[in-house]
């Protein structure tokens, strides 16, 4: 019964979306208030129906209703409740429902919180949102119905892939989709602006909160995925330039460019058609990512079960949803009036540099990810593009960008003095030199790239502090005045500084963990001690354990430093009998400036013959252990958290809740003849 309600809810949502797609547009064209208003109620209704469908699906999982095919394929009665819940979106069909849930959620938010938007714009935005909704709801109904039934129902299910039975991964998709799909809102705003034929600073201000929300969510989602692969996949790696990782990274790169470009559009009425293009591209990349993951065009450990038929449907959606807006752009964008002029050395100029480098970086990732496909289609040869390519091409593009991050906020609008800007950053420069010097001294000039990385991190982090110091005129006005300014600083200023600071923290983490990881791989027997970066890991024993749907072998390591106990680590190897898969459960103890990381495994795993038991061990109780000291690794995710937090703080700036800015009356200080 409940699955059927869910299916009807989806179909109703589709019907409402069709209405929402057509009528508000007509209303906006004819300036018909009632039709435009219809868009708002339709958006809320659409969200309601999709939420109902989602709830029905989740209920089927929680109740372990194996008569529903996706539940039978992806769940199991012995599975813990948390994973029954997250299993709802741990498969293709369920994740598509989550996708449209978030899409309709954003639409409903625009309908509810977009009170200060002019009705025609809002109506058009909601109509475009609905178009996307129609496309994907149809996709669900016709190719990916999550409510298909099995008759007779099997007694139990296939269990969720053990890799997905993890708290981190349970919540990675929702955040990722909030980001990915969140960019649909800025996309809709962009198309609405193109239809209207006008982009004014007000539009840029209205777009900003939605961009910030999506960007912050995407930052969080990517960070969660990276953190998950760090602790789950067993060798401490956190970024593999895997096609699906790249698919989420590309919208992030363009989204960051969009954030900055929109500021110029708002403050200086410049870069308008470029901002529109970025808004279209950000969501276009999200859609392309959706296509890549589900169509089987690329191999990836992340990819869902592939079906070329579904791939063809999504490709069709892509052609309409991206080709259409780009055609609209080619037609209408030239009509947008050119905006304010600026000198190359200025805040706008810095933003342009930011955009240039970010979009080139995105193009690099795009090319690298899709080149194997392109070449195969052209002449059938197979090349593979892996991390060595991305590291060699992406990093050089990003380095100048990182250097510019601290300088940009120091430059005034319209025209600036680079020397003065750099001069204000003297404190950050000192920090950078100190950091580089410390590295070179400690490692004896053997790690120039690492020195550069830490120097940049210090430069950016210091620059963020200088940002705030400059704003409050620290040391240049009396302390009381500075304090007054500090308390009056708009939230957006804090948000920007926090986000830039987070970037510095992230770069420090990336540099240190890549350059100075200490790894010890060796056989351990009970009583053996291994020194890892000054910490002594003593292997005590390995014991068998029974879990709800797995058997485990858990090892125990006592960790001490200079004789004083630090922690005990319990790495494990789990075997899930239903899916016949093993996972490595790493044991991690974080010291905040580093991680202690341990995994164990069967020493003969690579050459074990077939038919052996799940956990053979050697007679002498020897296990293969991988022990790590990972310096500054937690800073990678702390940096991402700061960035996302910065975005959220900016989001709460009261200026976003005020209505459209109105030009002030001309003041007395206006140059003659302007």
């Amino acid at each position, binding site marked *: 019964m409940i699955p059927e309600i869910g299916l009807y809810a989806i179909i109703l949502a589709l019907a409402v979306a069709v209405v929402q797609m057509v009528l508000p547009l007509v209303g906006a064209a004819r300036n018909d208030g009632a039709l435009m208003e219809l868009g708002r109620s339709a958006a809320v209704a659409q969200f309601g129906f999709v939420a109902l469908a989602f709830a029905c699906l989740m209920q089927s999982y929680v109740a372990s209703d194996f008569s529903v095919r996706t539940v039978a394929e992806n769940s199991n009665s012995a599975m813990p409740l948390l994973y029954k819940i997250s299993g709802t979106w741990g498969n293709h069909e369920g994740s598509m429902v989550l996708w449209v849930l978030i899409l309709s959620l954003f639409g409903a938010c625009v309908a509810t919180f977009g009170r200060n938007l002019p009705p025609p714009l809002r109506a058009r935005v909601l109509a475009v949102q609905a178009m996307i909704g129609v496309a994907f709801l149809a996709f669900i109904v016709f190719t990916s119905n999550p409510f298909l039934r099995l008759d007779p129902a099997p007694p139990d299910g296939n269990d969720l892939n053990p890799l997905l039975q993890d708290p981190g991964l349970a919540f990675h998709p929702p955040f990722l989709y909030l980001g990915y799909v969140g960019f649909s809102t800025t996309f809709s705003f962009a198309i609405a602006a193109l239809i209207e034929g006008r982009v004014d600073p007000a539009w840029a201000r209205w777009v900003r909160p939605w961009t910030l929300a999506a960007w912050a969510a995407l930052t969080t989602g990517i960070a969660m995925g990276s953190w998950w692969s760090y602790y789950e996949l067993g060798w401490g790696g956190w970024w593999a330039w895997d096609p699906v990782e790249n698919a989420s990274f590309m919208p992030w790169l363009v989204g960051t460019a969009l954030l900055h470009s929109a500021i110029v559009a708002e403050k200086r009425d410049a870069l308008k058609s470029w901002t529109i293009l970025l808004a279209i591209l950000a969501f276009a990349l999200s859609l392309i990512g959706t296509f890549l993951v589900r169509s089987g065009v690329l191999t990836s450990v992340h990819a869902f079960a592939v079906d070329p038929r579904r791939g063809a449907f999504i490709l069709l959606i892509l052609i309409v949803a991206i080709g259409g807006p780009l055609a609209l752009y080619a037609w209408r964008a030239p009509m947008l009036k050119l905006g304010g002029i600026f000198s190359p050395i200025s805040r706008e100029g810095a933003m342009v540099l930011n955009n240039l480098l970010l979009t080139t970086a995105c193009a690099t990732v795009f090319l690298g990810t899709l*080149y194997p496909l392109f070449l195969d289609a052209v002449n059938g040869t197979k090349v593979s593009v*892996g991390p060595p390519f991305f590291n060699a091409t992406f990093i050089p593009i990003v380095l100048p960008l990182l250097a510019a991050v601290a300088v940009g906020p120091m430059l005034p609008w319209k025209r600036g003095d680079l020397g003065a800007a750099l001069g204000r950053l003297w404190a950050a420069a000192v920090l950078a030199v100190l950091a580089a010097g410390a590295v070179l001294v400690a490692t004896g000039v053997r790690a120039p790239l690492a020195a550069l990385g830490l120097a940049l991190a210090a430069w950016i982090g210091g620059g963020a502090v200088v940002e705030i110091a400059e704003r409050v005129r620290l040391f240049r006005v009396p302390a009381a005045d500075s304090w007054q300014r500090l308390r009056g600083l708009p939230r957006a200023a804090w948000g920007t500084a926090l986000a830039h600071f987070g970037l510095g923290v992230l770069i420090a983490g990336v540099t240190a963990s890549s350059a100075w990881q200490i790894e010890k*791989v060796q056989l351990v027997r009970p009583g053996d001690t291994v020194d890892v970066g000054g910490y002594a890991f003593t292997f005590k024993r390995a014991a068998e354990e029974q879990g709800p749907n797995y058997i485990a072998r858990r090892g125990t390591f006592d960790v001490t430093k200079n004789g004083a106990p630090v922690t005990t680590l319990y790495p494990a190897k789990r075997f899930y009998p239903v899916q*016949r898969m093993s996972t490595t459960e790493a044991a991690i103890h974080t010291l905040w400036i580093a991680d202690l990381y341990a995994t164990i495994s069967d020493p003969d795993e*690579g050459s074990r013959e077939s038919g052996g038991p799940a956990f053979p061990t050697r007679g002498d109780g020897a296990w293969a252990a991988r022990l790590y000291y990972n310096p500054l690794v937690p800073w990678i995710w702390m940096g991402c958290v700061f960035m996302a937090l910065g975005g959220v703080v900016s989001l709460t700036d009261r200026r976003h809740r005020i209505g459209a800015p109105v030009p002030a009356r001309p003041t007395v200080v206006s140059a003659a003849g302007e």
Partner: protein
Amino acid sequence: MRLKLLIAGALLAARLGVASAWAVLPDEMLKDPALEGRARVLSKEIRCQVCQNENIDDSSAPLAADLRRLVRERIVAGDSDAQILEFLRQRYGDNVLMRPPVEPQTWILWFGPPALLLVAAGALAAMLRRRPAAPPPELAPEDEKRARDLLERNT
């Protein structure tokens, strides 16, 4: 489809899920740390042909283990990194290299982004040069001071 059966056959027998990502095992490692370090770095340049998104250093597939051993044997035998990669490339094709070779068919890949950057930067420079920035208006000294005061107060 058949390929999936093939892989399923191999994996079923080895009873290792793709998930059980392990890698270099103690028994495989060379005694000499410098040579072993070379082997580890080189392994990251070689793509496992079974678990095609991992390098052989990270993959738990039996073929990856075989290739790890092969790489170490050849290092000990004195081959250079380039020779070892060429050895594998002759047998498995370009697909086995994580770093695509720089040849005419990959020029767009390697040189495309830098070229794009240069072209875009050039176009931007040309555009900005054609539109001269407005010079700041000349102000009388009192107005200049007043403007500065206002700016100081409001920023």
